[in-house]
């Protein structure tokens, strides 16, 4: 599904990713953990194609296709989805209209007609019920005045609507209370299948109790310094990151 080879990226003069190697197969859940400033969000943004970051070395492949020079919208059309840590507020554009635009733009890119209004409504109803989203919520302006939890739930709703091949959840658990966390995690689990993959970026082990990863990677100073199974997350929770930092020095 996703293959990252020796990826280096920088913003302006600052090198943030310093040689990332990662393979994610269909059907897998990978967790990426690590201290603040280790490059987790940068990695997510680079996979999604944010132009602010310059890839100086290495490649990202999606289903064997090199994504070099591929715009964020084209990556979305190919099936990459990034759930934002800080979703942006768009006043005057309702959640429903935003999703219609996003879905129909994707269809257009694939040479398909707009989705019939009836099907769109059905899809919206189905997915909003799954995430326990109130109908009124859908007619509100996108993210405007949403609580932290509502914003994150709305991100997963968008993921459900767009049905990506590869979903990257960037700190989706931050700002969520335990009930919201459960709803969001349930949503992600329902969307999981043998044909898609999920990368969960998080600080804490908490989310991983609900979305159980097949692999856990620790990112430090722009490199993956340790990989393991879900037990690694528990170890990190217990010991913190300092022991890893020391190990790296040695």
């Amino acid at each position, binding site marked *: 599904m996703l293959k990252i080879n020796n990826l280096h990226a920088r913003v302006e003069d600052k090198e943030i990713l310093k040689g990332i190697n990662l393979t994610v197969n269909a059907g897998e859940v990978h967790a990426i953990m690590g201290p603040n400033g280790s490059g987790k969000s940068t990695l997510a*943004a680079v996979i*999604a*194609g*944010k*132009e*602010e970051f310059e890839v100086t070395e290495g490649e990202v492949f999606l289903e064997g296709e090199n994504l070099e020079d591929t*715009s*964020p*919208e084209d*990556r*979305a*059309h190919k099936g*990459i*989805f*990034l759930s*934002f840590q*800080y*979703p*942006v507020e*768009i*006043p*005057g*554009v309702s959640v429903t*209209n*935003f999703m*219609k*635009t*996003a*879905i*129909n*733009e*994707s269809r257009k*890119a694939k040479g398909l007609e*707009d989705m019939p209004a009836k099907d769109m409504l059905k899809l919206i109803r189905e997915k909003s019920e799954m995430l326990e989203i109130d109908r009124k919520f859908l007619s509100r302006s996108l993210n405007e005045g949403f609580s932290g939890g509502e914003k994150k739930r709305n991100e997963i709703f*968008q993921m459900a609507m*767009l049905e990506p091949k590869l979903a990257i959840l960037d700190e989706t658990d931050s700002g969520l209370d335990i009930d919201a966390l459960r709803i969001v995690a349930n949503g992600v689990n329902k969307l999981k299948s043998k044909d898609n993959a999920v990368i969960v970026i998080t600080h804490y082990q908490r989310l991983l109790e609900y979305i159980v990863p097949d692999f856990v990677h620790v990112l430090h100073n722009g490199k993956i310094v340790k990989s393991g199974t879900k037990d690694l997350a528990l170890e990190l929770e217990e010991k913190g990151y300092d022991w890893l930092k020391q190990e790296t020095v040695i």
Partner: protein
Amino acid sequence: MDLKEKLVSSFLAFENGVDLDHPVHDIRTEAIKNFETKGFPTKKEEAWKYTSLNTLQKIDFSIFPKKESMLEYRDVKKYFIHEIDTYKIVFVDGVYSSFLSETTHDGVDVCLMSSALNKPMYKQIIDVYFNKIASKDDSLTSLNTAFSREGAYIYIPKNKIPKKPIEIVHFSTGNEAALLLQPRNLIIAEENAEMQIIERHQSLTSNEVFTNSVTEIYAAKNSNVDYYKVQNDLTTASLIDNTYIDQKDGSVVKVHTFSFGGKLTRNNLNFYQNGERINSTMKGVTIIEEKQHVDHHTLVHHIQPNCESHQDYKGIYGENATGVFNGKIIVDKIAQKTNAFQQNNNILVSDKATINTKPQLEIFADDVKCSHGCTIGQLDEEALFYLQSRGIPKKEARALLMYAFANNVLESVRIPELKVRINKLIANKLGVRLGFDL
């Protein structure tokens, strides 16, 4: 001969066509003297620092159109809010078109300035209102006053509401190589009266047009006036809009200005709060590109206590476009408990576009709430990435963000069909087809 000389010498010819014994003619005579003394404003004047009329003055404008022009409704239908029934006061090259208009005297007067000036039954109202709130000092207003004889005349008596919105539309056909138009509107809402007006100036060919318009609005006690200005003209059309509004106790007047096109557009919007518990609202969306220029000069004079004013102007400037916003608020010493709010936000889409924005507050009372803010920025890159990451192409994403930026100004538009039209104009301006009806 420069334009000023031409205008001054044309006044004699103009006098041949009007009633010299009417009291209004004394007002005209005074006005031409003021214009002759002052001439066109120059960039040396603070209020005209960023807007030059030099190029316009070099054009040989016809002051009186010679030929009559006919327009078919089907050819100009799109410039009306044709989805709904409206009263229409339509002028073609400055001449009233009864064929395209729909006026009324059924309980309210929606008709012509020329009738109001010529018919004895209106004499009393003209005596009371004509040129009373308009500036006698401003040279362009004086120029309009001197040549005033045609425009819209709207009189809504006490407790009346017209059955439908009123459209005032000025077409120019290009029958003259270059045409100067000077419409003069008088709009009166008596106590508790209400009305909605949509004004548009539309050039139909690329021949030069220069409109110097003056509108006086009198809003009596507890009256309610909604005024929408749609400025989406060709790049050979220039407009100077001078609007003066006199408000009495408890009246609400809202003016929305949508500036989407024109060579040079200057809006002088002046509110005078002659009463208490008054609400004056000014909203504007400006989206221009090429070498277009839009200048908003607003004035709110808080003369009495317990009133409010709200100003919210959004501007999006592309290519070599230039914009100006100057918001002047005067709060007199006795105008305590005034609540004045002013905001001007701008996005520069190109490196070559410019905006000059300036709040100008003169506050003489000590118990008031006045706030103002202006911003100049670019589109938020993070927001752009967010939309793109959902599969929305960059161009559409930019448009969506610009739409969102301007959106809250549209919320207060109370004619739904007009709102739809403005939304379409915005989508058109931004060059996109979005996946839903804007």
